[in-house]
């Protein structure tokens, strides 16, 4: 084996009393794709932030091609040949592809050297099969294309090692194949790649070797991911066996939420065009689709954040089309928003505040305009216990919690009042197996109690496991609905691209 491209030796990093990384060793050889696995809070992101210069390690060394280097910021990391593609892209939407590449690259005598930039871009595109129109503004690119631009950006700056933080979370299945092809081509030409993911099947399909972190330490190394089962890897990550939940057969009741001919306008994302759907009591309806095909507008209409231009919405037979979020909640609608940090919670205030927010004006938490701090605290403490939300207590800043614990807190807040209908978007995005499993079990339990649930998601396997029926969204319309017994990943994937067209069949 050739000398490692990057070697991290004995990396330790603490935040206060918490050891986020403890004596972690890791290396990537040229041409190697390394999988970095671990539950949320296992220390993957901290480790990569140390490598990329966002944090200074308390102990340990980083070696690039055998030489120790000091990385104090992202510029040092780039100079050492380390590039990173974050989950949230860092692009200027109004600038073109080429201009985004040239940001921060000094040209001749203060001028931007477009010609040379274009030549490099063409070269990189050809070399790795990553093509993009250099003159398109970033705002016109799909999410997958933006990610491709981030990868090109790193290569443009001379990255020899590429770190990808959960790159497939935002992609459609067909785009994932394209990404994997490009990554394999890069590795074949001698680049090193660190691939961070929760999705074990992807890790098994793509990587040459895996490092599994648990509680900040290396819990295990997998030398042949392709011939290791997902269950074995999951066990390494969690420290115990994971059993998938079973959706019991059941007979759904009457429709609890119906959308009839809903169209929207004046929304940032793709508007809805004549969307009709329903969900019955004791039923889970999955909404599949590549993100950006109107899912956001659908969730916003149902939760009362967006008034539709046309069509009607009814909850248990009552027309609620123009209702505010508060009125919808009062009727028994529970919501889990797509973006828990910006829409769900108030990160700068105590966790307890976010947990009582939707019901602060009710008798449970206030009387005659005066808050009942004891009741608020007691409620939060009870939910923290019931949902096993890991945090120092109800008065901790909500933003200090990890994604999985935030999602549990949101779930607790909505389920505590026994909703009749639940609308959830991307319920397990970014969560680890343990937390995702917990959320799935809660949904199935709510279904068994007669709640009608709409799950908007991109993870088809998750949707197939949870849903009784699956509707596919394409360009703001419902492209078709299938009973999940008839649905397969391949068939749904085809419908998601607008190809297959199946009429409503419940």
């Amino acid at each position, binding site marked *: 084996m050739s000398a490692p491209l990057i070697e991290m030796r004995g990396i330790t990093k603490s*935040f*206060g009393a918490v050891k986020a990384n403890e004596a972690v060793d890791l290396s990537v050889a040229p041409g190697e794709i390394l999988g970095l696995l671990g539950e949320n809070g296992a220390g993957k992101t901290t480790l990569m932030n140390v490598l990329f210069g966002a*944090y*200074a390690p308390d102990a340990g060394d980083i070696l690039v091609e055998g030489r120790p280097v*000091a990385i*104090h*910021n992202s510029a040092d990391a780039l100079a050492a040949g380390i590039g990173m593609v974050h989950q949230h892209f860092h692009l200027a939407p109004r600038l073109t592809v080429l201009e985004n590449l040239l940001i921060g690259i000094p040209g001749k005598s203060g001028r931007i050297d477009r010609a040379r930039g274009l030549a490099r871009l063409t070269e990189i595109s050809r070399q790795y099969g990553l093509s993009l129109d250099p003159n398109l503004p970033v705002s016109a690119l799909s999410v997958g294309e933006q990610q491709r631009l981030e990868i090109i950006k790193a290569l443009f700056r001379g990255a020899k090692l590429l770190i990808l933080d959960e790159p497939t979370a935002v992609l459609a299945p067909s785009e994932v194949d394209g990404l994997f092809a490009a990554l394999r081509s890069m590795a074949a030409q001698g680049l090193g790649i660190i691939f961070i993911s929760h999705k074990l099947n992807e890790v098994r399909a793509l990587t040459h070797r895996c490092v599994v972190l648990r509680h900040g330490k290396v819990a295990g190394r997998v030398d042949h991911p392709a011939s290791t089962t997902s269950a074995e890897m999951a066990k390494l990550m969690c420290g115990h066996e994971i059993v998938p939940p079973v959706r019991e057969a059941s007979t759904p009741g009457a429709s609890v939420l119906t959308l009839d001919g809903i169209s929207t306008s004046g929304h940032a994302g793709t508007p809805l065009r004549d969307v009709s759907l329903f969900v019955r009591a004791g039923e889970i309806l999955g909404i599949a689709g590549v993100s950006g095909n109107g899912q956001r507008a659908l969730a916003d209409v149902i*939760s009362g*954040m967006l008034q539709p231009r046309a069509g009607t919405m009814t909850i248990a037979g009552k027309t609620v089309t123009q209702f*505010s*979020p*508060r009125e919808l*909640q009062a009727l028994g609608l529970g*919501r889990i*928003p797509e973006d828990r940090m*910006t*829409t*769900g*919670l*108030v*990160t*700068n*205030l105590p966790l307890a*505040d*976010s947990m009582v*927010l*939707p019901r*602060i*004006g009710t008798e449970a938490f*206030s009387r005659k*305009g*005066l*808050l009942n*701090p004891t009741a608020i605290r007691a409620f939060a403490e009870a939910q923290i216990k019931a949902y096993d939300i890991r945090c120092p207590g109800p008065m*901790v*800043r909500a933003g*200090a919690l990890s994604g999985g614990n935030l999602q549990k807190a949101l779930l607790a807040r909505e389920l505590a009042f026994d909703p009749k209908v639940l609308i959830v978007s991307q319920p397990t995005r970014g969560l680890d197996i343990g937390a995702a499993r917990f959320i799935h079990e809660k949904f199935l339990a709510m279904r068994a109690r007669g709640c009608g649930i709409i799950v908007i998601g991109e993870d088809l396997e998750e949707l197939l496991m949870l849903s009784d029926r699956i509707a596919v969204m394409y360009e703001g319309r419902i492209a078709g609905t299938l009973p999940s017994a008839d649905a397969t990943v391949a068939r749904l994937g085809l419908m998601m691209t607008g190809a297959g067209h199946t009429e409503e069949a419940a």
Partner: protein
Amino acid sequence: MFRLEARTSTPAWFNLALPLIAIAATLILCSGLIAIAGAGVIEAYGVMLSASLGDSYAITETLVRAAPMIFTGLAVAIAFRAKFWNIGAEGQLLAGAVASCFVGAIPMPGTLAMLLMALAGAAAGALVALVPATLRVKFKVDDVVSSLLLNSVIYYALMALIEGPWKDTFSGYPISPPIEDSANFPVLIEGTRLHLGVVVALIAAPLCWFLIARTTLGFRIRVTGENPEAARYGGINVQRVLLSTALLSGALAGLAGVGEVGGVHFQVMSDISPGYGYSGIVVAMLARLNPLGVVPAAIFLAAVMTGAEAMSRATGVPAFLSDVIQGTALLAMLVALLFTAYRIRRVGAQT
């Protein structure tokens, strides 16, 4: 080499330590100016301290000056909690002063007059604050700009009033007619200017704290300010909260004007406020938007103002130093606030 690193949490003692550090930094920075003016730094600060807090009379004078800044500080603190950027406390104070002067000039029993003055002043301030809030809620007009510019509008309206209909026909001075003697706020300690309005200001601070911390409106104000989208998602009528906050904030700033008319000047003139509305911003920032912190912050600025005049007389350092200290204190506090979100870390020890 040093670098900033994001903090995951902020220790509680920062709330107290940061304003004190900011004030210490301010005094150190400003000592250079005193030295340039040719005075002894220790001596100058000594005069400031003794003239503002050195004896009981000095303390009452400082409190009288602090009262309007407690009100404007509370007005700004509550507005900023909701992220309603009310830079218009100055104009709201002036509107409150004019309205209370108008009411106070009408003959009626003293208690009733004082009560009506307060109501009229609060209402006038609230109405003025409602303008930028409505523009923001209805038309997305930037409230920083509109509330700031409105200060000039109110100021020149006041000038037109005292240069026109209210002008003193006898002396020709641009001052309003005085309010009725019975409407003058009672003095609490004989031989001082410590008036009833100061006590009202001191009571208003804990009331505002209670409002923010313990009422559903306060909860909605906090949530709306921190994250309007989550607030809306959680069922809060964000626009209504912003308008309520504006009314409350404007009313508090209006009361600052009422106190100046009823307890200090007994009439309205062009310089009734030496920028108390703007000082309210400094006070609120030093208090970290906590209504209880507004009282010591306002007393500090008041002490600087009264002390600076005495220092100027004693050492020849221009009294403008008071304004410099205020401005520097605001900047120092803004820098200090950085450390609630970041920590300084020494790196590169091995290089």
